[in-house]
């Protein structure tokens, strides 16, 4: 039990490092926000200075960092210069869109890649194995933005079976009342499966785009890990003891093979968060990636800072969860 606590505590230094890094990144970005804000030529140097003081930019870096931490503690992520809205509010409306897309794609990728990798490893050289190799090699070679555009071209423009790639829901449909923030689920809660179906059609193409990206490394790792375990000595012992193939594969090989895969899920999730930016751009998805992108182009740093912080926070959380998960499966970690 104490090891679990210890593992949770051990992510605190990294979290603190992340806070410093996000703070510093916006401080070294070019263009004084105050100058940008005060780019009105009528403003004098004194006016700019006033704004600098208002923004707290005249204080020392350490003081600014404490102010930043204090604000964070209050849940204040700053204010967007371009929209004038508190960043926290904007993030809250956009985060569910990104989360829904990423989790959808993540689950899709896991559902396809792990069985594929396992079957490929069980029958090396078979057509499933070949398919797995092709998918693994092609998948990592597909730039998400090209995959997305290809899917749009095929399914929207040529075949006409996919809806227009403009966000989470057809603009003429009503959004269900927000409960979870995930339209797929909120539609069902609202008793409106039609909305869920429409949202599903919208999320399918971007979801597949992202899933293809994550699928390849997962399938590859599952296959390699499974092959590795299958050739290990304790599998030979199990075979020599006459255990059924089913028992050997499920109880002996699969659980062992999943250990490295589970640990790497955090990394895969992180890659997907990064790819989010490109996918949201291609599919006009109103998520935090697109928001961060827009604010970066308009030199609006508060949203960018918040975005980085949220991303790193999610990454740390996911890693913590996968570590604990792996620890529960693996007695050597000493968590159970």
């Amino acid at each position, binding site marked *: 039990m104490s090891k679990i606590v210890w593992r949770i505590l051990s992510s605190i230094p990294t979290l603190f490092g992340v806070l410093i890094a996000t703070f510093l990144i916006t401080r070294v970005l070019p263009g004084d926000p105050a100058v940008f804000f005060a780019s009105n030529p009528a403003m004098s140097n004194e006016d700019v200075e006033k704004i600098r003081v208002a923004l707290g930019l005249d204080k020392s870096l350490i003081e600014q960092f404490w102010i930043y931490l204090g604000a964070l503690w209050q849940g204040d992520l700053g204010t967007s210069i371009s929209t004038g809205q508190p960043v926290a509010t904007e993030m809250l409306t956009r985060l569910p869109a990104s989360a829904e897309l990423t989790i959808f794609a993540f689950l899709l990728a896991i559902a396809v890649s792990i069985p594929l990798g396992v079957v490929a490893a069980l029958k090396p050289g078979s057509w499933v194995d070949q398919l797995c190799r092709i998918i693994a090699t092609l998948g990592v070679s597909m*730039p998400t933005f090209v995959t997305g555009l290809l899917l749009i071209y095929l399914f929207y423009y040529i075949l006409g079976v996919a809806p227009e790639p403009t966000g989470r829901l057809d603009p003429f449909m009503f959004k269900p009342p927000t409960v979870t923030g995930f339209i797929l689920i909120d539609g069902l809660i609202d008793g409106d499966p039609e909305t869920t179906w429409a949202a599903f059609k919208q999320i399918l193409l971007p979801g597949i785009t992202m899933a293809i990206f994550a699928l390849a490394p997962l399938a590859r790792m599952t296959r390699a890990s499974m092959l590795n375990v299958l050739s290990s000595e304790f599998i030979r012992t199990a075979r020599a003891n006459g255990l059924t193939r089913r028992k050997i594969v499920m109880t002996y090989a699969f659980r062992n093979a999943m250990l490295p895969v589970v640990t790497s899920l955090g990394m895969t999730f992180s890659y997907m968060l990064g790819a989010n930016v490109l996918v949201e751009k291609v599919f006009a998805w109103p998520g935090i990636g697109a928001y961060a992108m827009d604010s970066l182009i308009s030199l609006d740093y508060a949203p960018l800072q918040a975005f980085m912080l949220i991303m790193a926070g999610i990454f740390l959380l996911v890693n913590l969860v996968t570590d604990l998960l792996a620890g529960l499966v693996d007695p050597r970690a000493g968590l159970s």
Partner: protein
Amino acid sequence: MAATHSSTGRLATLRYILSENRLHQVAFLLFALLILAAILGPLLAPHDPLATNPDDALMPPSATYWFGTDQLGRDVFSRVLVATRLDMLIAFGAVGLSCVAGSLIGAVLGYFGGVLDTVSSRFVDVLMAFPLFVLAMAMVAALGNTVMNVIYATAIINLPFYVRLARAEVNVRRHMGYVEAARVGGSGHGRILLVFLLPNILSPLVIQASVNLGWAVLNAAGLSFLGMGVRPPTPEWGILVAEGARFIASGQWWIFLFPGLALMLAVFTFNLLGDALRDILDPRART
């Protein structure tokens, strides 16, 4: 049995592996093609990649324009071909930088360990906590939109992989017999690192580098797709795809598809090459 190996054993094994595995042959062939295209691209291009020709705008692929033309009548084939050099330059530049710096840092940390190692590992953890692509975006935004900065940003986000790899590999080897033998033989730490350890961890590093080349190309193209890094009208695959994306809705598929395919082919080649090198250089992976 081993004593019967001739001194050309390694070459012979390479030839054997290549003759055995079609995919490995394809990997080396494609790689050679990419390098050739990067070197000779501007010479081979049938049209000036920058010359506009409004009369021939948005032409579908034909005998004159193999990949069609864009909205300004520029030849898509020539633009895709000429872009190879820039994209390869970014990839090799970034990977070269991160590989050399990362493996040196990692090797030193792995060999000496201690407080420096602990602190550096934490630093790498923090770096890895950010989605790397987003980190690259922020860095290019911070440093300015130039090709060099794209290379630096890509190098920095790839650095942790080499640091971790070299650190782990050195850590495994630092107490191995041949390292201790070198110490008994009077070699100092610096000589052991440079003469004994680094050459022996070259194989995993080379494999990592070839896979990394693919990531680097993807990363650079992704940045320019978003309008960061390389700027139009310079031909670069990511920009070409971004420009072509606008014409999907009107059916001019060739403008985005061909640079997209070129990009895919390049990444595919590097991944295949990585697999081939893993097969050839890493005896443990051999079956």
